[in-house]
């Protein structure tokens, strides 16, 4: 039997799927099978379908208190035109702006996944702006506390000066922002 996909090579991978009582068969050569996302050659006996994010997405929506009917599918992201329905189907948002466009749905979902909704990690160096400076100040304040606890007063004074400097530049940045508006 030839491969159903390329019709060139001998089919050596045979897959029978039964979903809701409907049987479908797939006969592929090894190369096409490898390119086929439904086939996982490293799991030759197909121990269940890989548990994907979409599989659990609907469940997460339910526990987040968002019923399917409550989601307004008329709303679309102004940048990429994605709807909530698209997201449920693919498990992926269309662009960065979708998180803001579907804030009411996304924030509870993100909270369910990660347990928190406040990023505390890295901030882009160039475009992070004020947030980056504030992060640095917070870090220095912690260092200041440790050095005072350890009675390293000289080091503490140095850190205090650094904080002052950063706060000044943060103020400047802030005023600059206001000036532009």
């Amino acid at each position, binding site marked *: 039997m030839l491969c159903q996909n390329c019709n060139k090579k001998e089919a050596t991978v045979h897959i029978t799927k039964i979903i809701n009582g409907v049987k479908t068969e797939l006969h592929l050569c090894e190369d096409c099978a*490898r*390119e086929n*996302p439904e086939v996982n050659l490293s799991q030759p006996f197909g121990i269940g379908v890989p548990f994907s994010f979409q599989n659990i997405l609907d469940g997460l929506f339910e526990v987040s208190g968002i019923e399917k009917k409550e989601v307004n599918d008329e709303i679309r992201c102004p940048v*990429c035109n994605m709807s909530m329905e698209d997201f449920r189907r693919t498990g992926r948002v269309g662009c960065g*702006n979708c998180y803001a466009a579907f804030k009411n749905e996304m924030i509870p979902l993100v909270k369910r*996944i990660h347990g928190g909704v406040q990023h505390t*990690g*890295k*901030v*882009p160096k160039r475009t992070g702006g004020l947030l980056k400076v504030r992060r640095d100040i917070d870090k220095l304040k912690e260092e200041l506390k440790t050095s005072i606890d350890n009675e390293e007063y000289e080091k503490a004074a140095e850190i205090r000066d650094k904080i002052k400097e950063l706060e000044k530049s943060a103020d400047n940045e802030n005023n600059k922002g206001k000036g532009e508006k």
Partner: protein
Amino acid sequence: MANLYSNMNGSDIIITSRIRLARNIKDIPFPHKLDEDKSNEIIDKVYGTLSGDDLQGIGPFNLVRFNKLSSAEKFSMVERHLISKELISNASKSAAIVNENENVSIMINEEDHIRLQVMMPGFKLKEALNYANELDDIIEGKIDYAFDNKLGYLTSCPTNVGTGLRASVMLHLPALSISKSVGGILNTLNQVGMTIRGIYGEGSSSEGNIYQVSNQVTLGLSEEEIINSLIAVVGKIVDQEKAARNALNEKQGKELEDDLYRSIGILKYARMLSSREALNLLSNVRMGIDMGIIKDVKPEVVNELIVKVQPATLQLQSDKELSGAERDELRAAIVRDAL
């Protein structure tokens, strides 16, 4: 062939450390929403940030487009952990940026615009993160990232928002596999926001008793916090593997020794070897070397074979297209030669 395994100094429970950062470009739809022209623009833009002369000793980097590669060449890159299967399935719109010694690979237009990956042999998560941050800063110097003060780096799938960081450690856990303890580890790891998977990450099974332990939670913790907990957890798993090896040796010493020597016997004399069989036998030999039971095989040889025996990488070592049976023959010949 330069690969991570052959760069290792010895055989050990910890094989490699890997850092992956997911990044996207501001105000541009994510890859699954883009046509070919737009996708190519992104590839050029990202490669442009890394192709200059001002990289201060980092690089040079090569751009790999998949339309010019054979199926075996592409899948060999997957076997060498440089790219994912998903990247190839979208070959006309995707690319990878790879450096000479293959410890940096940047996938473009996979699930996210940019997936920056740094791999290092051994237990070097902090070093890999520092290197990844350096590269990330270079790219960010010229590209505006999709970033939100609250949600951090914005990604195509909400499971990656925040740091966009997936830190993972590849581990060789034969004794824990034999004692069927990996399932128990999985349950425990899930409770602390981490997971354990097969050799090729998401959805893959373990071959040759090689596993990846990585963080799941990417938001609410800083990069350092994520890595520190991963380091602590991996340390515990290594202790458990050592304890399981000792227990195995104490309770079934003779049987274990017999098993390990049989493994090396088959590898040395077999005329046909499937990839699964070869990987499992090599796993036994690797453990035998670690435990001081097998003494006449160099660990580097075994490490290199682990990559060489995999189907696509093996195909690359032959001029003609091989059938499954021919591959098994060639594999057995390569293993025989090496040992």
